[in-house]
């Protein structure tokens, strides 16, 4: 399987601030990849470098197998992107915006009307009227931004915070849309700080903190059982007596037991006459993983130690 995004030793400094500090990222084709990290961890700068908007201080970027930004003219028509929220010409309608964006890029005007209508249909704006974008709600702008990214049926979708401003139903719709696009062969890369969003959608995640990529892992690995079992019982004392030495933690009716096989554990407890109300293997949540790995976001500035962070 080929990689759609490869970066080697990517560094971006803005004056004295290092936004991206040596990132080696590899995103294989065909997956749904989630880029996580606190605010100011360098996600957006990374996305901008990938798209050639910002020039790297050092390191290399390959997008769809071609070096960036040198081959931008050849690569970018195959990429759909939303960077740091949608943007549109506020005095024009959504449809007029898409027509102009479509006309600005390479490729002729053939089939433009159909392309625009299809993109609007896909994001749920099919029946949009001629109101100017200025009058759109945040959610509508967000949908319009995603429609613009979908215009040319891209092989790679790079979306920064795609569900910003959408209500729960809208978020669900977007998730379905991205899953459908991915099933049709589009690689989806989204950056977000909504962990639940990434948890529900992505096969693989990268976690950034202070400009570094501190983790790049498949979700199946992250969600693998930790080798501990959480159980709830009305007789915690009986559990401790039965499983002497294996109990890691006990608080109220909740007992944490070190055990690899929850089924066997359950059978043993029941056989010993211990009543079990609830029993499940412990899995780490994405939130735990990310919080363990990352510091606080750059949008928080405490009185002590604010010199340490930029």
């Amino acid at each position, binding site marked *: 399987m080929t990689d759609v995004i490869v970066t080697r030793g990517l560094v971006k400094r*803005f004056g004295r601030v290092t936004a991206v500090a040596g990132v080696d990222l590899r995103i294989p084709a065909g997956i749904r990849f989630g880029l996580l990290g606190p605010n100011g961890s360098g996600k957006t700068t990374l996305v*901008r470098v990938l*798209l*050639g*908007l*910002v*020039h790297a201080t050092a390191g290399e970027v390959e997008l769809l197998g071609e070096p960036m930004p040198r081959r*931008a*003219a050849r690569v*970018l*028509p195959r*990429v759909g*992107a939303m*960077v*740091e*929220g*949608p*943007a*549109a*010409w*506020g*005095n*024009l309608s959504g449809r*007029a915006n898409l027509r*102009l*964006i479509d*006309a*600005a*890029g*390479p490729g002729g005007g053939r089939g433009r009307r159909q392309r625009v209508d299809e993109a609007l249909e896909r994001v749920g704006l099919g029946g949009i009227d001629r109101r100017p974008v200025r009058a759109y709600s945040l959610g509508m702008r967000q949908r319009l931004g995603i429609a*613009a990214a979908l215009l040319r049926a891209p092989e790679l979708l790079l979306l920064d915070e795609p569900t910003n401003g959408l209500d729960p139903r809208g978020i669900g719709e977007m998730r379905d849309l991205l899953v459908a696009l991915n099933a049709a062969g589009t690689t989806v890369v989204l950056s977000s700080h909504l962990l639940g969003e990434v948890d529900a959608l992505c096969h693989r995640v990268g976690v950034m903190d202070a400009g570094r990529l501190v983790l790049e892992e498949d979700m199946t690995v992250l969600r693998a059982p930790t080798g501990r079992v959480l159980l709830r019982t009305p007789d915690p004392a009986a559990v401790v007596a039965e499983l002497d030495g294996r109990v890691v933690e006990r608080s109220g009716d909740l007992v944490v037991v070190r055990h690899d096989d929850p089924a066997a554990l359950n059978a043993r407890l029941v056989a010993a006459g211990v009543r079990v109300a609830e029993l499940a293997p412990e899995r780490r949540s994405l939130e735990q993983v990310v919080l363990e790995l990352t510091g606080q976001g750059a949008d928080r500035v405490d009185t002590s130690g604010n010199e340490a962070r930029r």
Partner: protein
Amino acid sequence: MTGVELSLLLRRRRVWLCWALLCALPALVAVLLAVTGLAPPPGRGGAFLSAVVSNGQLFPAAALALVLPVFLPITVAIVAGDAVAGEASAGTLRYLLVRPVGRLRLLLAKLVSIMVFVLLAVLFVTVTGYVVGVALFGFGPDAELGGAGGVTSLSGAVLSPVDLLGRTALVVGYLALCMLALGAVGLFFSTLTDSPLAAALGVLALVVASAALQPLDAAGVIEPYLPTAHWLAWIDLYRDPILWPSVREGAAVQAGYVLVAFGAAWANFATKDVTS
């Protein structure tokens, strides 16, 4: 991309407002002159203003002289300052660049759109000036002297309507070039900042500084290269024979401004980090 730019230009309400105001000021002056009959004496007031009362066909020239020093540069500054900085502050710049639109192509399209704006601005002022002038002041007594619609040139000889039309076309072209030079500087400023207002004010600061230096003897060495230095050379196009040297020199300096400013804009924008 150029088509997209022009479409954006023509659908912007601000642009039409600029054009409308540019045409409204001379029209207001014409109405005041017609109602009161108080034309400024020759040699005072705006250029050509003393002559228009006797011949409405001269009013386009008077109208251009009215808007040239301040009004026209302001509109050019607004539109040119908005060129790149406006897209940056709206966020559409990044979406154009990832479409992708090449950065040089984007700048060229912006320059063409500024060119269309200034050309239409000068043209609209000229045309409304002619219509208003003829409607309010008529063709004047020269009609009887120098044949139908004849106009006395600044040098005294009578110009035929065809000659006048040709000269007016030259004036429109010359002034559009002067304003394009200003617009190119605005385009450069517009690549330096994400604030359209800052870029527009930068252009106006240049105009004011240039106008302040111009009468200064101490600035004599650089005077021929000031952007505003040759703005009045268009009046020479209404002399008979036309004083070509001043017009030619002015055109060369203005074209130089366009080239240098566009080059600077390209040099800055080509490698700029777009973080807007």
